[in-house]
C-alpha cells in the first residue's frame, strides 16, 4: 500500500453559513417545466413537426402557382411529379396546394373547437368548483347527463340538421366537448380553493372573479394545458371522421378529412390521393399526442411512467 504523507491531510472546516447557501440559481416553475420538456426527445420531435406543419399551412398554398379550387380537366389524377408535387385530384386540382390549404382548415377546426371547449369548460368548472354546494351539485349533474350522450352520434345528428359548414362543425363539436375540460377545472379548483393564498386574497377583499382568474386558473394551468393539447387531435380526428361520412366542409373547400375521404374512393388506382392527406392527419394527431404527453410529464414528473 502506498504511503501517504501526513502533510497531505487537511481538515475541512464546515462553515455553518455555507451550508445554507443555495448553489444553483432558483428556477421558476415554468422554467423547470421547460427544461424537463426539452429533455423529452419524442415530445420535442412532435413540437418540431407541429411547427413545420403550421409553417406549411401558412406558406404552403403560396409555394405553387396553383389555386386550391381551380379545376384543370386536362390534367386529372396525375401522379406526383415536378409539376404537381403531390399529384392532382379527379378535377385536376393540385394536391400539394389543397393539402396545405386543408391543413389550415383542419388545424383551425382543431384549435377553434379546443379553445371554445376551454372557455366554456373553465367558466363552468370554475363556477361549480368555487361555489360548491347546491350550485356545484346541479351544474355537475347537468354535465353528467350531457356526458352520457354518445359524443359522435350527437355530432352526426347536429351536422345532419345544421347542414355542412365550418361554423356548424365547430358548434356541433363543442356542444358537449367542453364537459371534459369543465371536470378537470372543477377538480383543480376544489383542490386549490382551500389554499392559504386564496384565503389571503379573500381577506384583502378580492372579489370572486379576481380570485378565479388571478389565483386559481393560473395555478391550474398545467392540467388545463395538457387537456387542451390532447383535445386538439381528437377534434381533428372528428373532423376527418365527419368528412368521411359526407358531413365535412362543403366543396370546393378542402380539409384533410374531405381529401382523405375522396382519396379512399380512388384508392385502388390513384393511391397518392389518399396517401398525402392521410399521412398529414396521422402526423398531426401523433405530434399533438406526444407533445401533450410530454407536457404532462414535464408539468408533473410524479406522473411519469
Amino acid at each position, binding site marked *: 500500500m502506498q504511503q501517504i504523507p501526513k502533510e497531505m491531510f487537511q481538515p475541512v472546516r464546515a462553515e455553518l453559513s455555507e451550508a445554507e447557501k443555495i448553489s444553483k440559481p432558483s428556477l421558476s416553475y415554468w422554467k423547470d417545466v421547460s427544461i424537463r420538456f426539452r429533455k423529452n426527445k419524442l415530445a420535442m420531435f412532435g413540437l418540431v413537426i407541429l411547427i413545420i406543419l403550421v409553417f406549411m399551412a401558412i406558406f404552403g398554398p403560396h409555394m405553387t402557382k396553383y389555386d386550391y379550387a381551380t379545376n384543370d380537366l386536362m390534367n386529372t389524377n396525375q401522379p406526383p411529379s415536378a409539376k404537381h408535387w403531390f399529384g392532382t385530384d379527379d378535377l385536376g386540382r393540385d394536391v400539394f396546394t389543397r393539402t396545405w390549404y386543408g391543413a389550415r382548415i383542419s388545424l383551425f377546426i382543431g384549435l377553434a373547437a379546443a379553445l371554445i371547449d376551454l372557455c366554456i369548460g373553465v367558466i363552468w368548472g370554475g363556477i361549480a368548483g368555487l361555489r360548491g354546494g347546491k350550485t356545484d351539485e346541479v351544474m*355537475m349533474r347537468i354535465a*353528467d*347527463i*350531457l356526458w*352520457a*350522450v*354518445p*359524443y*359522435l*352520434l*350527437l355530432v*352526426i*345528428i*347536429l351536422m*345532419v*340538421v345544421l347542414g355542412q359548414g365550418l361554423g356548424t362543425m365547430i358548434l356541433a363539436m363543442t356542444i358537449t366537448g367542453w364537459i371534459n375540460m369543465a371536470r378537470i377545472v372543477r*377538480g383543480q379548483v*376544489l383542490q386549490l380553493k382551500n389554499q392559504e393564498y386564496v384565503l389571503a386574497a379573500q381577506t384583502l377583499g378580492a372579489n370572486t372573479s379576481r380570485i378565479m382568474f388571478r389565483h386559481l386558473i393560473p395555478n391550474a394551468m398545467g392540467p388545463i394545458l395538457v387537456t387542451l393539447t390532447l383535445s386538439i*387531435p381528437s377534434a381533428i*380526428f372528428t373532423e*376527418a*371522421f365527419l368528412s*368521411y*361520412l*359526407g*358531413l365535412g366542409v362543403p366543396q370546393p373547400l378542402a380539409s384533410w378529412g374531405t381529401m*382523405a*375521404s375522396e*382519396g*379512399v374512393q380512388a*384508392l*385502388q388506382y390513384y*393511391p397518392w390521393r*389518399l396517401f398525402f392527406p*392521410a399521412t398529414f*392527419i*396521422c*402526423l398531426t*394527431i*401523433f405530434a399533438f*399526442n*406526444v407533445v401533450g404527453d410530454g407536457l404532462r410529464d414535464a408539468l408533473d414528473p410524479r406522473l411519469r*411512467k
Partner: protein
Amino acid sequence: MLRYISRRLLYMLVSLFLIVTATFFLMRAVPGGPFSGEKKLPPEIEKNLNEYYGLDRPWYNQYFDYLVSVAKWDFGPSFKYKGQTVNDLINEGFPVSFFLGMEALLLAVSIGILLGIIAALNHNKWPDYGAMVFAVLGISVPSFIMASALQYFLAIKLELFPVARWESLQHTVLPALALAATPMAFIARLTRSSMLEVLSNDYIRTAKAKGLSKGQITVKHAIRNALLPVVTYLGPLSAGVLTGSFVIEKIFGIPGLGSQFVLSISNRDYTTIMGVTVFYSILLLAAVLLVDIAYGFIDPRIKLAGGKKGE
C-alpha cells in the same frame, strides 16, 4: 349497491329522454318534409301520406306518440325504404355489426393486454419501445385510414385477404383489425402503465421474497390488479368500436347497421337516422352502466353508494 344501481338507472333514463327529445325536435327542425322530393307530389297523395304517418297531428301529439313507441321498442317506418320499418333495418343489420364489433373487441382486449404486459415486464428494453411505438401509431392513425391501408396493402397488393364483402370468416379479419387498432393501442398503453405501477408495489416484493417465480408473480399478483383500469375503459371502448363501425362497414361493404346508418345519413332518411341513433344510445348507455356495475363488483375498494361528492 342496489341504491347505486337504481340511481344510475334513473340518470340513464334522464339521458335517454334527453336524447330522444333532442333527436325528435332536431329532426323536425330540418327544412322540408319527408315527402318533399324532387318530384312534387299531388296534394291529395301528400295529405294521405301525412295522415298515414300521423304527420297532420299537432307536434305535441307526435312527440308523445314517439316517446311511447320508443318505450315500446318501436322506431317507426323508414321513409326511404317502402314497407320496411326501422326495426326491420336494425334486426337485419345489427347481428352483422354485433359480430364484427365483438370480434374487434376481443382482438383489441386480448392483443392490447398482451402487448401492455410484455412492455411492462421489459420496461425500458426493446420490447417496451416496440410496443409503445406500435401504440402511438395505433392512436395516431384514424380507423378509416387504417382500414384503407390494410385493404390496399393486404388485400389489393398482396391478395392475402378478400378485399370486401361479408361472406366467410376470412372476410371479417381486415375490418375487425382496422376497427380494433386504436382501442388496442389505448389498452396496451393503459395496461403497461398500470402494470408498471403495480409492479412497484410492496406486495410484489413480498411475493418475490417468499420465493415465487416471476411467472407466478406476474399472473397471480400483478396482472389481476393491473387489469382494473382496463375494465373501466371497456365503456368508451364499446362506443369507439360502435362509431368506428360506421366507416369500416362502408369501406369493406359490410351489410351491417353501421353502413345502413351512413346510407341513411346521405339519403337523409330521417326516421332511420333518429331510430338508429336512439338504438345506439340505449346500447351505449347500457354498456357503460354494465361496465360500472361490474367494476364495483371486481374492485370492492370503489365505494359506489357515496357517488362523486368527495372527489
